[in-house]
């Protein structure tokens, strides 16, 4: 059974890995959208159905996807991270 110190270090690493991965995903998502806005004007002007251009759809999806990313984190933290924190707490 590993001691509390090494378990704390593992927990710390796991949280930062999750936090940085999801931050990276948010950065890619938003700056990918901005890159399309800057360099893909004609692409974003395509209307999928009359009125709904790809640009508007992707803009709305960036908002929805950001929220889904926060949901993924909250799910992970409640299901995986919190029980490990409680386990560490009981050793102190």
């Amino acid at each position: 059974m590993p001691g509390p110190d090494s378990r704390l270090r593992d927990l710390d690493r796991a949280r930062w890995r999750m936090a940085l991965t999801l931050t990276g995903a948010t950065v890619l998502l938003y700056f990918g959208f901005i890159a399309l806005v800057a360099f893909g004007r004609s692409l974003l002007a395509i209307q999928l159905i009359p009125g709904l251009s790809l640009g508007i759809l992707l803009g709305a999806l960036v908002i929805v996807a950001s929220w889904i990313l926060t949901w993924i984190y909250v799910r992970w933290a409640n299901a995986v991270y919190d029980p490990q924190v409680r386990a560490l707490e009981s050793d102190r």
Partner: protein
Amino acid sequence: MTQAAADTAIGQPNAVAMAFFFVFISITLGITFWAAKRTRTTEQFYAAGRTISAGQNGFALAGDYMSAASFLGIAGLVSTTGFDGLIYSTGWLVGWPVVLFLIAEPLRNLGRYTFADVVAMRMRQTPVRIAAALGTLATVTLYLIAQMVGAGGLIRLMFGFSYEHAIILVGIVMIGYVLFGGMIATTWVQIVKAVLLMSGALLLALLVLLRFHLSPAALFAAAAERYGAGVLAPGKLVSNPLDAVSLGMALMFGTAGLPHILMRFYTVPDARAARTSVFIATGLIGLFYLLTFILGFGAMVLIGPDAIRAVDKGGNMAAPLLAELLGGTPFLGFIAAVAFATILAVVAGLTLSGAAALSHDLWVSVVRKGHADAGEQLRVARIATLALGIVAVGLGITFKGQNVAFMVSLAFAIAASANFPALLLAIFWRRYTTAGAVTSMATGTIATLALIYLSPTIQVDILGQGTAWFPLKNPALVTIPLSFLAGILVSLLAPEPAAAAEFTRLERQTHLGSPAE
């Protein structure tokens, strides 16, 4: 202001707006009276006694963040430029996931009242507290100027008061909330405002969509039919991609450095509640920005960009005009009162966080070296609130008629370049030092202010020069990396073993929270 479009009640005293406004003021002052009886300690004054639930804090975060600029400004921008305005809708939201992933929980577990608590934790207090307080006050002051000037203009436009009266009224009511009710009253004002703003925006969007068979696509198609398919695609706004990236970086990382937002994480009982509250806030704010798509295009089709610009050059009256068209003078009155409530709530949150920097960071930690008793701490917090409130009114009157729209994005740039790097490095980098933190925050603040002065925003738009020395309108693309680099280099050049040794204890507290609370 003379009315170019004569068939609007905007700019005339509106009985319904007054009535809604008085109801809002009565309710919030009632809340303040109730809160005042529960505000006896510094923990209650700054952090509402840590009794705010995750759901309440989610609404309060949304209330603190959604300023009149986002409600009126983005709807106006979309109604006059189409798709280009939507770039802002997405930009204002993407900071929230970053707040959740990197900052919210460690901040709640490590600090007490201000974000400087976390940066200064394992370092020499005096220099770090001073630098962090300057970053906070710079952010808060710029944000306050933008809000107060906007408030004066809007209220004059909507209620027909004079600019100065409007500013003084906002100042007095806001000081009343914060001075007597502290964080408890401020939180509930935010919650009431968030509910009002969300319901107003939802109702307005629904009324728009009823004219288009409840189909957003039909609304967008009508806009394209009348003003060309170009309104559904990127236009002139993003002529320089680097400008867009730089502004995007300020918005994305600035949210995680806004003192009045960060302070809200201390009002909940634990890190888990802080986490849940960001999830709820992100959902509310995201929904609100999705609604700006409908409101903006609705105003474009039903009122028309020219008619909107005729009432207010900046387009800020698009949403109120839309409300008047679809719901008559009573609905206009409601939306006007919501806009006023929105401004009041945001300035209250800003003032409280600025007062915390003055009293908790500067007076208690620097001047009194942590040896102030509870009574003195609360007294100084209230004096700081009053002083900052008066300064806010003074700034609002001083900057009358100035173009201050850029100040919000400047506040975000400073928050992103001065506060965010220091906070992040303090949380997760063992070898961060006092000198590194101070250099990083000072570099972030000074470089941002200097580059914005040399940028087209000041040189071309305000001073009327032909060119600017620095090409970007927002400096975050340069200043965020610069601040990180300065902090890391100085820390590596002069290690501080005491600060590194403390990190191990800090690491435990980052996850488990403070044992004493």
